């Protein structure tokens, strides 16, 4: 996996990373490109709580972000696109310049 800690990735890059992370969880999907933003983690991939926790660990490690437990729910897990939104938001927070610089 490409380490993306130091630069802000494009949405499609995040999706591609998610495809790699999710590969073990999707045995019925022969072609990873079939995993799209609208894929449902629960119904399409049949992921359980443990799977989602493990996937989170991978995402946190990959992007050096921290996702809080109370940010997660079934709506979020119902679409990979929702997860990408969350990752983007976290990355924006991380990439936002410090307060002082912005006011200049």
């Amino acid at each position, binding site marked *: 996996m490409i380490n993306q800690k130091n630069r802000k990735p494009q949405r499609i890059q995040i999706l591609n990373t998610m495809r790699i992370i999710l590969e*073990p969880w999707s045995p019925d999907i022969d072609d990873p490109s079939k995993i799209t933003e609208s894929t449902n983690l*629960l119904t399409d991939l049949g992921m*359980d709580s*443990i799977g989602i*926790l493990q996937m989170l660990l991978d995402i946190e490690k990959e992007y050096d972000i921290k996702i809080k*437990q109370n940010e*997660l*729910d079934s709506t979020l897990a119902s679409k990979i696109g929702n997860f990408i939104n969350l990752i983007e938001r976290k990355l924006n927070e991380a990439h936002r310049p410090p307060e002082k610089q912005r006011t200049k």
Partner: protein
Amino acid sequence: MKLIDLLKNSAQNEPQTTAVKSEETNLTYRQLLTYVNRTAEHLKSIVARKGANIAIILGNCPEFFIAFFAVSAADATVLPLSPAMTTYESLFFLKRADVSIVLTNEKYSRLLLNDKNRQKTKNLTIINIKYFRNSILKIRTEAKAQCPINKQTENVALMVHTSGTTGKPKLVMLTDSQLISNMFLYSSLMNFKQKNIVYCSLLLHHIYCICAQLLTHIYRTDTFILRNKPFFIKEFINQVHDNNVTITAFVPYMAILLAEVKNQKKKLQSLKYVTLSGAKTPKATYETLTKKFPHINFINTYGMSEAGSRIAIAAPFPKNFPVESVGKPMPGVDVRIVDDNHNLLPPNTTGQIQVRSSGVAKGYYKQPKLTEKTIKNNWLNTGDIGKLDKKQNLFIIGRKKDIIISGANNLYPSEIEQILIEHPAVSQAVVVPKKDQRLQEIPVAFIVTKSHKNIETHELIAFCRKKLSTYKIPRLIKTIRKIPKLDTSKINRKKLKKMADNL
């Protein structure tokens, strides 16, 4: 007394009380019993006499309750299996347990019917069971076969598996009286003073949930809130609040997630009891929880399938149990600590935990030698390591050899190793636990490849995923040149564990 009698009594005393509530539907005790009876009639029409082994592959839905008690009403033996299992796993257990009927949902029956190994179990009757909101219970037989009588499980109410899909599986046989006596002990010790609203998020097929949730609260005519989706702490808190939930059962990872939340005390006001089992809850987590939520009783418990479930609990009162203990053995359950030669050890000395009670299992299905070895003179050798202090508080120090506890699940390394070795490029594989902050342990595999060729990790993971449930898939696979050994044959798992923790 049979398991079905618990439900019958409750339905007779309080027919209008809500028994189960799921996202789609509600069932009163009277309705539940009606559907149980109807399903039992259907089962009886297939098996003429008692003694069939019937599997249930269903999640936490009303149909699980209907199917579970219907099997009891039909004088048969129930084997609950997780719907998260791959068909490779479920077909293994169905065959080894000589199951003749499977009660499941449409999705899983399709998986079973389409599996290329279905030939192995062509003697299987597959029944779809679906309850609709408009009070219609649909029972459809998808595949029909002969159902022979099984003499070995006559009088056995429940079978649970305590090993993976390798060799001869360990299928623990429990009778009605073993389960009911254990449930009575547990229930009286919890000393509930009022009606409970029970939140079920852990899969009900766990022996922990069958005793501490299903049987206990059906007997007490309480109401179940069923969660048939992954556990998210945010949704758990909202559902406790919306349904006035009073009790739930956790395994450590759920407790760890709850300990992480902030400012939710008000929303959890109705919650009085959280029972903890599956593995040891970390001390720091326990202390955070009791500090954050002083109104909730967090109750450590210890049990295992072979003991008919609960062995010891740190019952809600008095509250002065040492944090790291799992409480005292339940009254009626004798616990002793012995050395390797079965000599009794004095208090505070670490040794093997043995248990004797009316709940101890009849034995392992079709494994008389293993049964004899495990249960001697009515004493069950748990295989766990622990100690009792002078006040009879039980401490669990170690557990059965090689088991990995990840989240809510027990993993058996040999099962994962066997699948890895089936890959054409792998010559040896050893699976060990790696410490994990939330899941406590995660499985890590060390492999040696044939002629030391390189192999892509994701290829191996995808290979495992075809046969194993997701939680069993190694999270890291490390190729090494040689498996470290203690002597000529014994694998040095301790060293590998250390290596895993440093990965």
